[in-house]
């Protein structure tokens, strides 16, 4: 599926990267612990997180994450949005809780990467 599909499934807002919505995503990872994300994440991934600090953007950068989704209404600040822009990252925001957001994407066909 594409990031556009992800956005539609979650009814999410696009905060950064509107121009990249056709990018393909193949797997997803949901966590507030960045070290776990760094251990398990796969290529062409989406990262769902409720953690909201600059290290989330850096983690996404190191892993070539395609799209970051902030759940439960978390709002990244301007500095984080600027970092994401510089790195060509897409940022979505949704009011859904982590569990629900992951479930909706899973049901729509986006699965976690096999470890």
């Amino acid at each position, binding site marked *: 599926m594409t990031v556009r599909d992800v956005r539609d499934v979650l009814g999410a807002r696009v905060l950064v990267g509107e121009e990249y919505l056709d990018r393909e995503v193949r797997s997803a990872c949901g966590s*507030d*612990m*960045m*070290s*776990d994300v*760094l*251990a398990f994440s796969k290529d062409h991934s989406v990262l769902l997180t409720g*953690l909201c*600090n*600059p*290290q*989330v953007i*850096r*983690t996404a*950068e*190191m*892993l*070539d994450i395609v799209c970051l989704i902030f759940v439960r209404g978390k709002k990244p600040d301007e500095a984080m949005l600027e970092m994401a822009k510089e790195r060509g990252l897409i940022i979505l925001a949704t009011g859904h809780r982590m569990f629900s957001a992951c479930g909706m994407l899973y049901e729509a066909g986006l699965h976690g990467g096999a470890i």
Partner: protein
Amino acid sequence: MDDVITLNYEVSPDDFTRAGEASSDVKSKLKQMGVNPEAVRKVAIAMYEGEINMVIHAEGGRITVEISPSEIKMVLADKGPGIPDVDLAMQAGYSTAPDDIRSLGFGAGMGLPNMKKYSDDMVIDTTVGVGTTITMRVTI
């Protein structure tokens, strides 16, 4: 073919939000140099975890990266407290990081295991009370 490019970074102890700047810089330089993406990814993750560790545990330190045609060597040196039991520290899930670090998304006890996982070779040289030097190599 024996050109080696050396990059040096000072890791600042004060500001957790800036941790990762060195890794970010190395990643973009390797990309520009056309190094294969899998190696770039491995270097980026291993070094980033190391950089975070230096900020959490060791009040910063110094990172030297040597890029040769066959491998990327990262040397992360700090004057922190040292690691009393390396085998224990290498266990996934073991952490001595303070709780406030966990609220920032780190301190899950995955740092050193991740560094080992993503590097092709890792050597830890540590002395309690003196500091730690970790050398990691990734084959290109």
